[in-house]
């Protein structure tokens, strides 16, 4: 399964100090022409990528191992948002720079003939690939582009995993899991509201089938993400660090001039080095801690290149920060959980801010991050000035128990009972499946948003509660293509379900904890990942699978 390297290395290659801010989100119209190839930025990026990969080859011999192999290369394709998408006057750096990706493809295409560019953005992947220029890149190098969410799923068991023991991947990723295809992770240097940073192996999140992603997308997110490496690991990681992205990604983030390419053969070590270069302490990264604990790291890795640190503004998965309060003075959060991971409620007034914050941050990979993303989108939207002062109460969690009664904490140091929440002025939304005990406080049943994991559900209802917000996510000129892409995805998913090859599993992410697998034989328990045949669908199962494909959901997930 995958390449076993005798020696791992990470290469940091500095790019010449040029202005790279043209076309870092979308390729220009003249991509592939001599005019494009003659551009100073394109020449510099190509030289930097080639130099980095050559240095890595000299140290690890990766090219010989890739020669003649089949490859799946996965960029990090999230929103493709040129400057007209939001009220900012710069492009939003969320997606792997297509110029860098083109440079990597040039090197890989010299080694291999069968290359698949694959991504499951969780959005309208095909349209975003078209917008960014990935379809043009695929055509230029004779590669195929596959949107993961349009592929049939395959089922696997990972007996050693902590939470992701039963997993579903698209068939093309299945080839990687079975060792038939090598995997190249090609992310962008970005902060991430759910995990702190999103780099080499976090990029694998997009390989899950869509409904799989919602499972354990809670405080267990770091465990879940590292569990993927039991199924497969990147054989090569190339990080686009030309323009980085800081702030609350996947909400609209801000560009950082990072000026380098980082690549390596061990994704955990590449991520560790890049995290450090972004000004964060890798020792504090729960994601890296989890990966180390499971032995996916390599303490003997060789690091080639200079560690020049450019500090990134970290993401804030909270509605309690000073920045959030400055941007949203009318929004107030009430949070309460009862479980061993959160501070115990001992009084109803004068509660220290640290305890309220700790209570909220317990579920970092879940509700606070999703809410933070939504508000970041609203903040960047053209209608922000109209919504800035909107009075909104946000209730999260099942309530903290005190004397047999449930309470929700606010940053004013008071714990609010359900009766007090119901009497709050302004509009109230209740977010999260586990927040059901507070649902009566919602202004309208529509504003009890059950599964935050259904991000589209959360985003749409939050947008309604924040009316007249008009969230922008795509250049409006491309809006028709978003519609076409969503309908295309819907048709493909329905057609695949009809022939008994569904592209997803039933949405079932309503609980924490591991998704159990049947008892396995002793020899199976010792392997990292086992393919499990999918049950053939009868006509009832096919109809059910077809019915689960919802047209409106295709616009977002």
């Amino acid at each position, binding site marked *: 399964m995958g390449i076993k390297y005798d020696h791992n290395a990470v290469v940091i290659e500095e790019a010449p100090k040029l202005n790279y801010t043209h076309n870092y989100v979308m390729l220009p119209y003249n991509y592939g022409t001599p005019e494009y190839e003659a551009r100073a*930025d394109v020449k510099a990026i190509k030289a930097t990528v080639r130099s980095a990969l050559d240095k890595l080859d000299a140290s690890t011999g990766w090219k010989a191992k890739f020669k003649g192999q089949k490859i799946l290369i996965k960029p990090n394709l999230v929103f493709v948002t040129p400057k007209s998408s939001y009220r900012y006057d710069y492009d939003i750096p969320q997606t792997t720079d297509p110029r860098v990706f083109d440079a990597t493809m040039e090197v890989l295409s010299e080694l291999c003939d069968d290359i698949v560019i694959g991504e499951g953005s969780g959005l309208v992947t095909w349209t975003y690939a078209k917008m960014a220029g990935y379809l043009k890149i695929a055509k230029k190098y004779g590669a195929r582009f596959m949107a993961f969410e349009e592929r049939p799923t395959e089922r696997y068991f990972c007996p050693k995993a902590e939470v992701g023991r039963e997993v579903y991947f698209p068939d093309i990723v299945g080839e990687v899991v079975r060792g038939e295809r090598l995997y190249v992770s090609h992310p962008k240097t970005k902060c991430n509201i759910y995990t702190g940073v999103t780099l080499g192996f976090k990029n694998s999140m997009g390989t899950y089938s869509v409904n799989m992603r919602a499972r354990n997308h809670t405080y267990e997110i770091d465990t879940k993400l590292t569990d993927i490496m039991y199924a497969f690991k990147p054989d090569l990681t190339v990080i686009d660090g030309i323009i980085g992205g800081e702030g609350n990604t996947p909400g609209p983030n801000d560009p950082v001039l990072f000026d380098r390419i980082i690549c390596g053969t061990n994704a955990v070590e590449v991520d560790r080095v890049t995290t450090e270069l972004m000004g964060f302490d890798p020792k504090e990264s729960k994601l890296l801690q989890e990966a180390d604990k499971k032995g996916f790291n390599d303490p003997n890795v060789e690091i080639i290149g200079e560690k020049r640190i450019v500090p990134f503004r970290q993401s804030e998965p909270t509605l309690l920060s000073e920045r959030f309060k400055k941007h949203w003075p009318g929004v107030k959060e009430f949070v309460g959980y009862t479980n061993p991971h959160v501070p115990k409620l001992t009084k109803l007034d004068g509660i220290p801010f640290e305890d309220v914050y700790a209570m909220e941050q317990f579920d970092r990979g879940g509700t606070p991050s999703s809410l933070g993303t939504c508000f970041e989108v609203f903040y960047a939207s053209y209608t922000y000035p109209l919504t800035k002062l909107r009075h909104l109460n946000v209730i999260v969690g099942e309530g903290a128990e005190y004397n047999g009664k449930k309470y929700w904490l606010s940053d004013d140091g008071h714990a609010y009972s359900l009766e007090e929440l119901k009497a709050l002025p302004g509009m109230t939304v209740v977010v999260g499946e586990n927040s059901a005990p507070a649902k009566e406080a919602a202004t309208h049943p529509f504003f009890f948003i059950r599964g935050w994991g259904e991000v589209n559900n959360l985003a749409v209802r939050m947008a309604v509660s924040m009316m007249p917000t008009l969230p922008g996510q795509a250049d409006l000129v491309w809006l028709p293509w978003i519609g076409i892409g969503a309908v295309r995805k819907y048709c493909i998913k329905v057609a695949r379900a009809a022939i008994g090859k569904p592209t997803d599993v039933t949405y079932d992410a309503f609980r924490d904890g591991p998704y159990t697998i049947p008892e396995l034989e002793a020899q199976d328990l010792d392997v990292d990942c086992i393919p499990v045949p999918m049950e053939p669908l009868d006509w009832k199962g096919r109809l059910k699978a077809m019915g689960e494909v919802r047209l409106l959901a295709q616009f977002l997930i």
Partner: protein
Amino acid sequence: MIAVLSYLGCILLWIGSTLLMIIKKNPFCALFLFCLHFCELLVIGLKTGAEYGKKVTETVASCLCFGFLWWLPLRREMKRDIYTDDDFIRRPDDVVIRHD
């Protein structure tokens, strides 16, 4: 949004002209639209499509349907994306703006 509304307006115009032709037997509106877009195709549409890298079939279909609504944004994009070496020189005022 203006672009989307313009496209929708153009589609409605075509539907209206076609209905006029079928119901009222008045072909002039549809004919006028077609001739106008055909002239645009010959004068600038084909040239724009070729320079942009569009297929001839796509160019012809798009220009005949939408006229300047199709070729004008392409020309603007092409004008915007033409850079000289001077545009790639790093200057102190290049981003970054921080939304702290």
